[in-house]
Structures are given as C-alpha cells and as structure tokens.
C-alpha cells in the first residue's frame, strides 16, 4: 500500500494563483506591480509543485482534505504521480507564459489587461486543482471554474467575432460540465465512491452493458469537449480569436489538456482497463480518437490562418493521447502520458511563435509569411524545432512519445491504429513544412524592411521551450523524471494495483 501523508502543500499550490487574483485586481493602476504578482504566484506554484516531486518518486502520496462538500464526499486534493505529472507541465509552462504574456499584451497594446491577468491566474489555479483533485466531484468543481475563467480570455478582444466565439465556447463548456455532473452523480449512485483509484473503481458495480456505455459516453462527452474530440471540437478553432498567449497556454496546454487529463482519469482511474475492455468501451474511444486524428489533420491542411492551422493540429494531437489511452496497453498509455507533456512544450513553442509574428509584423495568415525566417531567425528556429517534433522527427521530444504510441499499437495488436499514427505523421509534415518553406526559402516582401526580432520578453521564452523540447527529446528523463513517472503510472493503471511507481524501485 502506498503511504499517504497529510500536507497542505497541494492546497497552497492551488491557492497561490487564486490568491494572486485579488492582488492583481487591486493593483490594476500599477502594471509593474500587477505583473509582479502574476510572476510571484507562478514561481510559488511551480516551486510548491516541484517540491512534491521527490516524495512522489519515492512512492509517497500526499493528500489533503479541504472540507466535506456533500455528505460522504470531500473536496480533497491528492498528489499521485498522474496529477503531479500534469501539474508540473502546467505550472512550469505558466512561468514562461507569464513572461511571454507581459511582452505580448504590452507589445500588442491590449485593453483591459487587469482582467486578462486575473482570468489567467484563475485558469491556472483551476487547472492545478484539476490535476491534483482526489475525486470526481473535486475534479468537476475545478473543471467548471476553468470553464468560467477561460470565458473572459476568449472574448478578450471584444469584437463581434470574439463574442460569437465566447458564446460558443461557453455553450460547449457548460453543457460538457453539466454532463460531467450528471455522470458524477450517477457514479456516486452506483458506487458510493468517487475517489480516483489506479485501475478504476467501477469494476464490480457495473453489470449492465447499456448502462456502462451510457455512463462512459456521458463522461467522454463531458471531458471530450475540452479534449477537442470530434464532433465536439468546433469551439477550439473559434476560440483562437483570443490573444495568442491564451491560445498557447490554455488552448494548447491547460484547458485542452484538462480534457485529455479527464479522459485519462476516467479511463484509467474510474473505469479501469479491465472494465473498459469488458464492455467494449475502449473500441468506442479509440474509434472516435482515430477519426479525430485523421480528420483534424486533413482540415488543418486547408487552413490559411496560422493559429487556426495550429488549432486543428492541436485537435489531432490531443486525440493521439486519447488513442494512446484507449489502446489499453502499457506502452500506449505511457506514450499518451508522454505526449501530454511533449505536445505541450512543442505546441506552446509554435503558438508563441505565431504570437511573436503577430505582435511584430501583424501577420496572421500563412500566405503572408514569405521570407520572415531572415527577419526573425530565433523565432523561426524555435518554430522549426516544434514542427519537426510534432511531425515525429528525432531527436525532438514528441518523437519519443510517438514512438511509444506506435509501440503500444503494435503490442495491443491493433495495427490499424499504427497506420493512423503513421498517416497522421505524414499529414503533419504536409501541413507544417509549407510554412517552413515560405519562411526560409521564399523572398520576403518589402513590408519586412526595418523589422527585426520581437521583444526579448517574448523571444527568450520561445527559445527556452524549444530548447526544452530538444532536451526532453534527447534525455526523456531529464529534469523532472517524466519518463519514470509515465512508466510508473501506466504500470499501476494496467496492473490495477494500488502500487504506483512499482517499476521505480532501484
């Protein structure tokens, strides 16, 4: 049995961004102080999360019950390897995004910056809450907070288009949240338990196949909206009207990954591989994910708007993770988890670049990007790293995860999904490489004269994430032991035993 310790550190980590909100609102007249609060909260949260890592690696689980919110159900946080894995990604990328945001909103002269930073902090707090939730109801509560906190960011530009996207986002997110609430209530009625457990807890109580499928579909519809599963994805490209750092952190990392994280929790920790297989739920999930991967890549080919193309690429890559989970093989699950981290660093690099191009040159369409490789060399170099990674070229980190995903498809004997992964890799190249071609090999127009790199506040984070992608590709276990964590998680889920990180023992 894993040892569970009581500690307030997870609570503090969730509260740090939330506590920054009033401070940000109060110092709206003093931008520098306001940004200081954002950065302070980002560093505090990240530090607290990282301080939990050694314990988790040693096999200890830290938990904290905040209070009882419904008879028998507590609002509680628990740091298990899976939650920590996601929390590390979010909190560390928040630091980079904070610097980048400051450069971006000041460079682009955005209005209502206080609202922007406050909502951003709310989103991060909610995402960390999602990552560290110990049970479904806590998960739902933070999930709804995240939906609400993202809305002001989506409509930030206050144009007709952004209002329409905002309403669309809200409709999707709130409907999904309600379905998730119903699913949670149903789970409680069935099992009288909502605590996540590796290998699932619904095994013994689900008898009826119809009910199992209905419950699973409710869950997947609830988390699938944020995970961009087709046909629930259309809010995501629409939400690209938001400022780029929002697209970068939220629509490539926090919000969509919360959805994917929800899929992982539901499949691995609520239903469990055995139950999924018994009722054929894995086939449903895998089919949806495979269709999404191919369709999203094809649609991405046809987008001229850079951010829209990145959005459809995101939809495709999110389904990589979902498909990895649905394969129900240890390698697939592990590959999915790794892709959660690797797609985050590479895709955030791409979005950061798109934002830098917009702020610097006011260009949003791919057809306008001719020759910018010479104007913004650092930015476009980072862009190249991201593109290579997502297309599955070694030694960028996304190659590692794609490798394990393919291995999972092979070991589970479902070669059709191997074909899906490979075809999608080719499609990735097909929609990404023309951008590189335009940027580096076509002559730039006259409009590029007199422009150089974007502000260092933006370029430095861009370079850092690109280097990070490279380092994690060469040494998958570097810095924060993502590789070990992912292996331990997938083993504990597949074994259905409550012995996380069994493979870690020296």
């Amino acid at each position: 049995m894993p040892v569970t310790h009581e500690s307030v550190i997870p609570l503090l980590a969730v509260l740090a961004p939330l506590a920054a909100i009033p401070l940000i609102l109060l110092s709206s007249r003093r931008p520098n102080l306001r940004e200081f609060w954002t950065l302070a909260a980002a560093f505090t949260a990240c530090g607290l999360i990282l301080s939990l890592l050694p314990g988790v690696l040693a096999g200890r689980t830290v938990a904290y019950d905040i209070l009882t919110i419904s008879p028998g159900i507590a609002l509680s946080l628990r740091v298990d390897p899976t939650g920590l894995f996601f929390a590390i990604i979010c909190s560390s990328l928040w630091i980079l995004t904070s610097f980048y945001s400051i450069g971006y909103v000041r460079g682009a002269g955005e209005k209502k910056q206080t609202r922007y930073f406050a909502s951003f902090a709310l989103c991060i707090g909610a995402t960390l809450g999602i990552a560290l939730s110990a049970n479904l109801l806590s998960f739902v509560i933070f999930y709804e907070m995240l939906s609400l906190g993202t809305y002001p960011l989506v409509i930030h530009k206050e144009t007709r288009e952004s209002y329409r996207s905002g309403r669309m986002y809200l409709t999707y997110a709130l409907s999904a949240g309600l379905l998730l609430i119903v699913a949670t209530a149903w789970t409680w009625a069935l099992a009288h338990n909502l605590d996540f457990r590796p290998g699932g807890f619904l095994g013994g109580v689900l008898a009826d196949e119809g009910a199992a499928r209905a419950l699973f579909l409710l869950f997947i519809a609830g988390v699938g909206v944020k995970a961009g599963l087709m046909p629930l994805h259309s809010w995501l490209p629409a939400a690209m009207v938001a400022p780029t750092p929002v697209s970068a952190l939220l629509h490539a990392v926090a919000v969509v990954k919360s959805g994917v994280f929800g899929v992982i929790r539901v499949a691995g920790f609520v239903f469990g591989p055995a139950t999924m297989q018994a009722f054929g739920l894995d086939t449903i999930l895998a089919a949806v994910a495979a269709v999404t991967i191919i369709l999203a890549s094809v649609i991405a080919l046809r987008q001229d708007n850079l951010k829209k193309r990145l959005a459809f690429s995101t939809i495709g890559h999110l389904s990589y993770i979902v498909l990895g989970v649905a394969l129900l093989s240890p390698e697939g699950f592990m590959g999915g988890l790794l892709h959660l981290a690797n797609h985050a660093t590479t895709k955030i690099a791409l979005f950061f670049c798109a934002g830098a191009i917009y702020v610097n040159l006011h260009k949003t369409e791919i057809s306008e990007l001719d020759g910018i490789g010479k104007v913004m060399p650092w930015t476009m170099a980072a862009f190249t790293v991201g593109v290579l990674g997502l297309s599955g070229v070694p030694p960028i980190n996304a190659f590692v995860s794609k490798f394990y995903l393919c291995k999972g498809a092979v070991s589970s004997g479902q070669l059709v999904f191997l074909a899906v992964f490979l075809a999608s890799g080719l499609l990735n190249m097909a929609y990404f490489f023309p951008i590189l071609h335009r940027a580096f090999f076509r002559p730039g127009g006259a409009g590029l004269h007199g422009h150089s790199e974007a502000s260092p506040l933006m370029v430095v984070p861009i370079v850092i994430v690109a280097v990070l992608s490279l380092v994690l590709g060469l040494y998958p276990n570097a810095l924060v032991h993502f590789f070990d964590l992912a292996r331990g998680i997938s083993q504990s889920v597949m074994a259905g035993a409550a012995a996380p990180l069994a493979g870690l023992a020296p």
Partner: protein
Amino acid sequence: MMTSHIPLLIPATFLLAALLIPLAALLWRRLSWLLAVAATGLCFFYAVKGLAHVTTAGRLHYHLAGWQPPFGIEFVLDPLSAFFSVFVTGVALLALIHAGRVVAHEVSGVDMGFYALAMLLLAGLSGMVVTGDLFNLYVFLEISALASYSLIARGDPRAPLSAFRYLTLGTTGAAFYLLGLAFVYMSVGSLNLADVSHLLPDVGDTRPVLLGLSLMVLGIGLKMALFPLHAWLADAYTHASSAATALIAPIGTKVAAYVLLRLMFFLVDPQYLRDQTPLPAIVGCLGAAGMLWGSIMAMCQKELKRMLAYSSVAQVGYIALGIGLASPLGFIGATLHALNHACMKACLFLVTGNFRVRLGHSTLPRLVDDLRRTMPWSAAAFTTAAISMVGLPPLAGFFSKWYLVLGSIQQSNWVFVAVLVASSLLNAVYFFRVLERLYLTPLAPPDDTDVAAAAATREAPASMLAPTLVLAGALLVLGIFNAWIVSTFINPMIPSRLGW
C-alpha cells in the same frame, strides 16, 4: 424561560410592529423604517435562537392560551419550521435594510404604509411557518396575501391591475386550500397537523382525504406560482416597487413551498403518497415543466425584473421537482434550494433596486458597460448570484441541483435529469446575456440618446450595498458549508417515515 415562547414571539412581534409603525410615523417618518428593521432583526434573533434550541435540545411547542393541541392552536418550532423561519426573517431583514432608500426613491410619501404592510406580510409568512394548525395556516396565508396585494399595488401605473389579478388568483388559491381542508376535516375530525397525520392511517376511506389533499396542493401551487398556475407572478413582480418585489419575491414563494413540503411529507405518509397516488409525480412533472417554461420566458424578457420574475417560476420548479421525488435526496434538494434560491433571488432583486435608484431604470437593452466601472460592487454581487443561479460550483446553487440530480438518478428518472441539465443551460443563456451587458463593451453604441444621461455616476449608497454584498457572500458560504447545513439542519427534519 423566554425560549419556550419563541414560536409565538416571531409572528407576534411582527404584528405588534405593524400596529406600532403608524403611531411611530406620526412622531418621525424615518422611525417607521427603523422600527421595521428593529422588529425584523429581533425576530431574526428569535429565529436563530429557536433554531439553536431545536438542534440541540429538541422541538418547541407553544399552546396558545394553554389549550392542549387537538383542541387549541399550537405553534411548533421543529427542525423544518425553525430552519425556514431563520432564513425567511434573515432575508427579510436584509431586504428591509435595503428598502430604506428604495422606498424613499420609488414610492415616497407612503413609507409608513409600506413598512406597516411589510410587517403584516412577515407576520403572515412567519405565522404560516410556525403554526401547527391547518386552519390557522389558512388565516396566516390570507394575512400575508392581503398584505402582499397591497404592497404590490404601489409601483408603476400598471401595478394596481397586476395586484388585482394577483388578488383574484390568490384568493381562489386560498379558497381551494380551504375547500380541501374541509374534506380533510370531514374525514379526520381534527385540524392539528400532527394530530391529523397521526389519525390518517386509521381512516377507512382515503378518497376524500386524497381529494382534499389534492385541492390543498392546487391552492398552494397557485400561491407558489407552480407552472401552469404562475400567470400572476410576472406582472405582479414587474410593476411593483423594487422594495416590495425584493421583499416578496425571495420569501413569498418559499413559504408556499414550505407549506407544500408540510402537506406532502408530514401530513401524509410520503411513501404511501408516492406509491399509491400520482400526486407527487404530478407535482414533480409540473415543476419540471415550469423549469423549462420559466427559463424560456425569462430569455425573452427585456426588463430585468420581469426576467427575474420568470426565473423565479423556473426556480420554484426545482423545489417542486424535489418535492415530487418524494425521497430523502429530493427533500434535501428542495429544502436546500429553497434556502439558496431565497438568497440568490434576494441578491439579484436588491441589485436591480440599486440599478433603479442610480440609473432610474432596469431595462436590459439600456444597461451599459459603464456599470462595471461606476457600480463595481453591485455588478460583482449580480455576477456572483447569476453564476450561482446557473449552478456552477462552489457557489450555493450548484449543490441544491447536485442533490436533485442525485435524487433523480436514484429513482432512474432520466427525464428529470435531462430537464435539470436543460434548465441550467437556459439559465446560463439569460444570465450571461445580462453579464455581457454589464462587463463588455457593446459592439454598436446604443441608439437611445438618453443613455448617457441615465448612466450611473456612482455606486449605490452603503445602506443598499451592504445587504447586497452580505447576500452575495452568503452564497459562497452556503455553497462551501452546504454539507454542514445538510447534516446539521436538514437531515434531522427528514420525516422518519421516509427511511433515511
């Protein structure tokens, strides 16, 4: 010593204040407001004390004039009535503090009448809550109804007609209640609630009792604005002064819901009722229909008060749905939602009052995003209450819906689950429409030329802002501590026959 008198003291204090206020107003006009607030505060204190006594030491019975129960009138504070009297007096206290400026602004010149009638209304409502006698309940019902007709009649020019419509329908509702009570009395021979409930199992022919009960439910349904008996509510709330609406809307329908709870969970065996008669199912289905209809109508409104009035129809539907489930979880959901909705609706109506005092109107198309800057606290309170109405955690509104969803799933009533989900989404649609008005820059400048003149220049005065913010804060507290409220106050009131 005093504790044993609390059941009587609550309505009696209100009645006394109703008599004293006209005299006090002769001395100093503002004294009528002070007296009303003081009396309500005193009653709130009694109610809290009563609730504390009920939870720690058991229920309180007061026999009027010393006559023993089946013969004399009995006032009872049990967990249910103590709970309701606390939040009814509490919300009324905040609404009355808030009313001070609104009355001076909207119905100036009749403040004495307003406060005297408000006291009569509260005497009636609190009497309905504490009385243990079914006929006495009718009398208190009529006292509160007559006071509310008169309160609603003051407002804009259309108010008297809407008050008249409310009067005819309300009186019919009371007549139905009285007719139903006649059937129950003819079959059982007693009017004391506990006594009737005790004797009912021995009644051979249950048909007259069920007929009587149905008629009583019909009458109370009218008072509660249960769909499709809600026609009076929208006009009555829209045209009355903001002060009257803020006082009546949050608690009037809740007390009617309390009577429905009493009838369907305590007067008769709820399990017998659920298994042998269609009555709970009908109430639940009407509630579900009201949730959808009220929300759809609310979406079509341009006037903030009218929108909130239709939203009340929907929210009453939630309570009716919980009652219709006739299960412990349904009971918890209904009771908790009564409390939550009273606070949410009070908060929303108080903010509407703030807008009316500062802007002179509360028409949605004329609200401008300047309010975000000029009235930040009112806007924030509105946002909190609106999000709670939509049912997003961790605000109060989420948790009552959570229990209702749990209850519906427990009975595999998927229609109710679907309606709960749909109604929450519709809530989101009409509330976010208002929030967009408050916070976002409009795309096209409003075509009204008088908007600039009507724009607010400053936040509402402290006497109005304080109650608004207290209610907004209460929503967060009620949400976070809902488990404590349920286990401490609501669990003890679940009738033992329900088997919890």
